[in-house]
């Protein structure tokens, strides 16, 4: 895949400081069109800061950043129109109905009424939600809500979608199903930029970058990384990289600490 390697995100020397603290320390990377790009790291490693900058939410301290063909400083409007976003916190409104949510976000992204109607019908048929059109989101099971939230995030057919820990707090089966949806989107040509701290999910990505202490410690395909560190899975890759920096260990999620001593 990615034969032509057309880039959709270009980041050069991105720095973000909060006071004296460097949340993002000289990041440089590229994301190619159509790939699923995993953005890994422990909590506090700077993932969220980076994703917020790429989405145009925060201004970087310095660096050159181009997203979906637009400059993040001067063409923020254009960037926003061409990306989708879904965060860990659930992003649909619970007290309004399935269709009203679709209509709202369709409207916000400038779709016409006819486009909204058509895509809503499509989407509900695909997700098997036709009978829930006028149900409140709060009445849907979590798994469905999440699928719907993702579908709404790509309703305006963006070139690129950012998923910020989309599967946080979800059971493994639902997570697996959610990844099927991500693949589907990637098949339709949408580039997926996903942050996660589930290492099994890292295996599903085309390429992953691993952030430690505000820097990108490594970046490659999962199989290349496993080969390089001579381990069997991404979890061990992560631990090897983290072990390079002992301070970093304390910032790890408890789940990694347990596994480390197994």
């Amino acid at each position, binding site marked *: 895949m990615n034969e032509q390697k057309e880039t959709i995100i270009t980041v050069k020397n991105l720095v973000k400081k909060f006071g004296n603290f460097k949340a993002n320390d000289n990041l440089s990377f590229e994301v190619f069109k159509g790939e699923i790009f995993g953005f890994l790291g422990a909590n506090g490693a700077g993932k969220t800061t980076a994703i917020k900058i790429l989405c145009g939410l925060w201004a970087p301290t310095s660096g050159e950043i181009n997203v979906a063909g637009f400059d993040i400083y001067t063409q923020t409007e254009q960037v926003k129109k061409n990306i989708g976003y879904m965060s860990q916190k659930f992003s649909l409104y619970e007290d309004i109905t399935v269709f009203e949510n679709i209509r709202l976000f369709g409207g*916000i992204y400038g779709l016409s009424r006819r486009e909204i109607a058509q895509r809503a019908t499509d989407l509900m048929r695909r997700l098997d939600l036709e009978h829930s059109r006028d149900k409140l989101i709060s009445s849907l099971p979590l798994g469905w809500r999440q699928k719907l939230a993702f579908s709404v995030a790509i309703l305006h057919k963006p070139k690129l979608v950012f998923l910020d820990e989309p599967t946080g707090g979800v059971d493994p089966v639902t997570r697996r199903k959610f990844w099927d949806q991500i693949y589907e989107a990637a098949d339709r040509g949408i580039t997926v930029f996903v942050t996660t701290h589930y290492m099994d999910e890292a295996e599903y990505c085309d390429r992953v970058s691993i952030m430690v202490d505000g820097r990108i410690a490594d970046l490659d395909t999962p199989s290349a990384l496993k080969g390089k560190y001579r381990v069997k899975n991404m979890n061990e890759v992560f631990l090897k990289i983290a072990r390079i920096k002992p301070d970093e260990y304390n910032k790890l999620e408890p789940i990694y600490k347990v596994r480390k001593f197994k």
Partner: protein
Amino acid sequence: MKRFWGFVLKEFLHIFRDPRTMLILFGMPIVQILLFGYVITNEIKDIKIAILDQSKDPVTIELTNKIISSGFFILDRNIKNINEVEDVFKEGNVRQVIIFESGFGRKLKREGTANIQLIADASDANTANLVVHYTMAIINDFVREQNKLTGSPIQFIPEVRMLYNNELKGVYMFIPGIMAMILILVSAMMTSISIVREKELGTMETLLVSPLRPTQIILGKVTPYVALSFINAVTIIVMGNLVFGMPVQGSIILLLAESILYILLGLSLGILISTITKSQQNAMFISLFTLMIPTILLSGFIFPIENMPKILQWLSFFIPPRWFISIIKNIMLKGTGLMYVWKETLILIVMTSIFFGLSIRKFKIRLE
């Protein structure tokens, strides 16, 4: 623009789907008006009075009987000396002392007029006011009867003294007060809560990533509350008029325009509160403590500003409802035009601009 209206529509849906919000928006004003209205205009019953009759002639005895048999008053005691009045009040049971001048009946016969003094304990201003009004009504009734009987017009000249609270405000005070309180609560509290809710749920982030501009998001959040607060203002004016006979002497258009200005001020405060709070609960408490309590205590709504200590009087300069109450009292009761309330109006405009300026700055800083 279309993006914006879709967003406003969603905000209306939130409001209409939430029974609690609806209740606060529409139930609260009505309940408050009725509550305050009836508490303040409540009928009086069995109020203890004392009488100092310096004449003891048939006219004063008959009038005394009429007052006591009305059912509103109980004669606690007869006093003999003007010096006792103070003591009677200090004991605390007696709310009113009625004093007939000496030679009351004789004077009445000869000159056609006589003096009655009504002294009320105005430490409870509203009761004092009522007590005096009731007594006067009885006395006037008595005068009418006498006129019919004798054919020659007589006149009592009642002199009213309010003890302990000379600057007694009228019962009409409460409608402007409630209007000031409800409008600022609804517009500031409800908007700050609804903005902070989006932060809490994480939907704010989704909105900020979308092509909607931050100003559009904020305007979209507040637009429904402008409309609903305006409906509230109209409800209060109409109810005040129909239920409690609160007049609107001045221009209704000016009154509504001033209300809109005041609503905008509330919204700007709401936005400001939302930029400094992280949870809905916080937003609510800050609104209640910084808006409702000062409105009740310092705006002149219940306690006359003139009677406050100097420091509190200065403090009340910074309380927006104080100016709004002054404006709408002028328009509703005195029928004055913008010429007379331009100063207050200007103060509200300046406050609104400052709050909007601050909240836009805060909102931008948060985005950085």
